[in-house]
């Protein structure tokens, strides 16, 4: 059912003319474009064979007279389930089942708008729009049927890709109606289905990619194979901003299969890093050639960068006055006059995304002006714009084929590897597949920014908060990735969520202290909330302890006196985690929540420790507030995954630099949590329906580590303020 599986490949020769190319950009089979409303490029009609007519009802729905229905999916699947959940939005209101459709990925064409999966935005951003697309399609098909039968439209209904005339039982398939339907005006306000009639949305619907992924048939970027393709393995310098002075390829050229070398630049944000690729007829030969290559780099002084020194700089800056990002009341006065004052510094490290599929891209030029890429990416539109910008060619001359991604987590928002492959391919007559090593993936960034948080709170004698401050000290993503000189706009992204929690904290003054760095930093699943939430929610716990209150009751009764979604979430957590049930000796419970741009979630973690040092995670409870849910099982999977990623971030390795390069290179020294270390996660979803939709992919991440650390404090009395920590010896 998948176009992915037909990757042996629509475009075979470089003899395509521009017109063919543009047509192929939209569709893998030549399409009859008759849709109105979403697309304005006219009434072109192409019969793809004598008896097979393909109708594009609108840009998202393609119906062939044979009955085959294809739905365009604008959101790449990197494991977050959008291969099911996004087409489902169209299928539900179009009245087709997912089993009867083909799912095709869009390629960055303008008519589809945003085509980037990130920020937990796929469902939130597409829900209303794509349901409307499906509903409009269905109304056009029903109207076409009623006109052919000359019966009132109200006597007709659609189900499973067929329109029925209720009184007589007559029927037409969508394939029989599509051509006529596509000439009807597109209804601007089609009637959406009542949620009580949903067959797909809100259900634990099986994902169509799962059978492919358990049989080795799912095609990822790294699996693409084109006729005449060669392979590239590239030498990048692990010290950032280095210049390639010269190289010696004597040994490289002796390796059988090596064809040539291509110098190019890695374009990442505003940066251009020197690099050189070895081209060979197998990947193994290209990789051997790279290992044999002797490169001579000018580090430009960047080989002295050291994480320990940098962290001391951040620590030293904690007393600096920062940019005020939130101010309410008189923090200084209230803090200094408070009977109880507490302060703490939290330290969160740099991390690598490390998706299981190393970065890769296959590229081919069709003549001098047109380039086509096959890639695992979080956004076809961004692949297009990055190649266009860096290779200075019009976006319309770029065709992007999106395959399944072997993980993303933010890394595949940055399409440097796609620009690299397109750059290398420009120097070749054949298609080329560039594959990074795991070492390159681990060492070359962009990395999650490290953030330090200087926390202050003033409490009354009864524990009520009188003053509160969260000051973030960190480099920023924009200043490093985009090389921005003006960093005044960076404070909001680097203080994500710290001023907008539902907690009632009077005299709150939050600040941002900017620190320079030359390492490229970027969004990592849940972005800055992945670090600042740890400081925020552990410090709230410190306040509760100082107030002599139970940490969950302190939040509910002292900090959340008014109704809020956060209060509802915490009450639900209290119930599902059996918070009030006594625990055995040596056990402890911790709670944390975080609300940020992506959504709202919270955890209760239960741990035990026999020796007040070695920690075992007994059970994890999670509540996520979504408003509306599309696939509850996918939500549970995303939360299980976010908890696993958060546990790795909390208890495994940071990315640390020595002599300008990362100490970590591969999974032996940048380990991930393994199966024996992962506890059960019980997921509860709050979804009362209605128009408010929150994100799924990220809210499961930020509150996990603080809930764990708060549980460890409850069990051992040890307060963790620096990640990562050794869970076997806290």
């Amino acid at each position, binding site marked *: 059912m998948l176009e992915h599986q037909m990757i042996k490949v629509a475009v075979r020769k470089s003899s395509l003319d521009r017109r063919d190319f543009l047509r192929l950009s939209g569709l893998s089979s030549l399409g009859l474009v008759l849709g109105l409303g979403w697309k304005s490029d006219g009434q072109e009609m192409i019969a793809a064979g004598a008896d097979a007519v393909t109708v594009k009802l609108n840009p998202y729905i393609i119906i062939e007279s044979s009955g085959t229905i294809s739905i365009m999916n604008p959101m790449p699947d*990197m494991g977050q389930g959008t291969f099911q959940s996004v087409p489902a939005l169209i299928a539900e209101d179009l009245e087709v089942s997912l089993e009867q459709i083909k799912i095709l990925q869009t390629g960055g064409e303008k008519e589809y708008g945003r085509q980037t999966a990130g920020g937990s935005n796929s469902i939130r951003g597409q829900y209303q729009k794509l349901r409307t697309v499906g509903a409009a399609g269905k109304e056009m098909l029903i109207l076409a049927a009623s006109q052919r039968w000359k019966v009132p439209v109200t006597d007709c209904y659609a189900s499973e890709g067929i329109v029925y005339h209720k009184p007589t039982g007559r029927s037409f398939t969508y394939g029989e109606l599509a051509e006529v339907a596509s000439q009807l005006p597109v209804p601007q306000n089609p009637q959406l289905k009542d949620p009580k009639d949903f067959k797909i949305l809100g259900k634990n619907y099986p994902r169509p990619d*799962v*059978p492919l992924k358990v*049989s080795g048939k799912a095609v990822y970027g790294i699996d693409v194979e084109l006729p005449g393709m060669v392979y590239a393995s590239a030498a990048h310098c692990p010290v950032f901003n280095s210049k390639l002075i010269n190289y010696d390829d004597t040994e490289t050229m002796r390796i059988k299969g090596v064809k040539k070398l291509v110098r190019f630049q890695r374009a990442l944000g505003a940066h251009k890093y020197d690099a050189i690729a070895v081209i060979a007829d197998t990947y193994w030969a290209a990789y051997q050639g790279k290992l044999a290559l002797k490169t001579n780099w000018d580090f430009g002084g960047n080989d002295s960068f050291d994480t320990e020194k940098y962290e001391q700089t951040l620590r030293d800056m904690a007393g600096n006055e920062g940019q005020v990002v939130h101010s309410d009341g008189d923090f200084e006065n209230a803090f200094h006059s408070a009977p109880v004052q507490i302060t703490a510094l939290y330290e969160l490290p740099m991390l690598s995304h490390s998706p299981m599929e190393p970065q890769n891209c296959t590229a081919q030029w069709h003549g001098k002006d047109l380039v086509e890429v096959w890639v695992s990416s979080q956004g076809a539109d961004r692949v297009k714009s990055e190649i266009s910008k860096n290779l200075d060619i019009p976006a319309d001359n770029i065709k992007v084929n999106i395959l399944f991604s072997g993980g993303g987590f933010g890394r595949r928002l940055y399409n440097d590897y796609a620009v690299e492959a397109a750059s290398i391919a420009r120097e070749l007559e054949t298609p080329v597949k560039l594959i990074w090593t795991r070492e390159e993936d681990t060492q070359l960034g962009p990395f999650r920014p490290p953030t330090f948080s200087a926390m202050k709170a003033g409490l009354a004698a009864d524990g009520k908060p009188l003053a509160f401050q969260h000051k973030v000290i960190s480099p920023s993503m924009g200043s490093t990735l985009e090389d921005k000189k003006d960093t005044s706009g960076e404070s909001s992204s680097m203080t994500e969520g710290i001023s907008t929690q539902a907690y009632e904290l009077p005299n709150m003054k939050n600040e941002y202290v900017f620190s320079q760095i030359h390492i490229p930093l970027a969004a990592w699943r849940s972005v800055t909330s992945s670090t600042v939430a740890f400081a925020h929610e552990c410090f709230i716990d410190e306040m509760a302890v100082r107030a002599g209150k139970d940490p969950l009751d302190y939040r509910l009764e002292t900090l959340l006196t008014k109704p809020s979604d956060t209060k509802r979430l915490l009450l639900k957590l209290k119930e599902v985690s059996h918070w009030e049930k006594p625990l055995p000796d040596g056990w402890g419970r911790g709670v944390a929540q975080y609300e940020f741009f992506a959504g709202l979630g919270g955890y209760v973690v239960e741990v035990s420790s026999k020796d007040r040092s070695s920690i075992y995670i007994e059970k994890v409870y999670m509540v996520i507030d979504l408003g509306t849910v599309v696939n509850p099982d996918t939500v549970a999977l995303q939360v299980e995954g976010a908890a696993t990623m958060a546990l790795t971030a909390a208890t495994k390795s940071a990315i640390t630099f020595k002599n300008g390069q990362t100490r970590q290179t591969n999974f032996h020294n940048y380990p991930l949590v393994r199966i024996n270390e992962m506890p059960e996660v019980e997921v509860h979803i709050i979804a009362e329906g209605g128009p408010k939709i929150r994100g799924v992919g990220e809210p499961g991440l930020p509150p996990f580590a603080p809930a764990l650390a708060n549980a460890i404090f409850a069990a051992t009395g040890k307060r963790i303020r620096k990640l990562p920590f050794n869970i076997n010896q806290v």
Partner: protein
Amino acid sequence: MANISLTVNKKQYQIDADPQMPLLWALRDIIGLKGTKFGCGMAQCGACTVHLDGEAVRSCVTLLGRAEGQEIVTIEGISDNTSHPLQKAWIELQVPQCGYCQSGQIMSAAVLLRENPHPTDQDIDEAMMGNLCRCGTYTRIRKAIHRAAEIMNG
């Protein structure tokens, strides 16, 4: 370069390749079986796990010279139609997220179940520790192996 004969999923292949090339790249780039994945290149992640004479090995560090003449089974060879009990259980429990590591997970689990038709959680953890999953499907993998054992044992 040398002429090397491989038996993969019960089919014979004659390939001309460097005997030092890891089996992984011969499977993927010469024979064209792409279900076996490259993850780390140093036997740390298990994404490249295949069976060599019935044992789970990391094909990224198994040299072609060593694989010659032995029975190799890849994810494509464990069933024609996702009918292996592990595949059925994986589908039933909707285990994969990105899916990239799952070929390797299933190949490791297949050896476990052959050797131990009634594994405990601890048996599963021990057998599956060599297979990383960045998406975090571990708890479902554990459940799916128990489920596959049930299916196998009727």
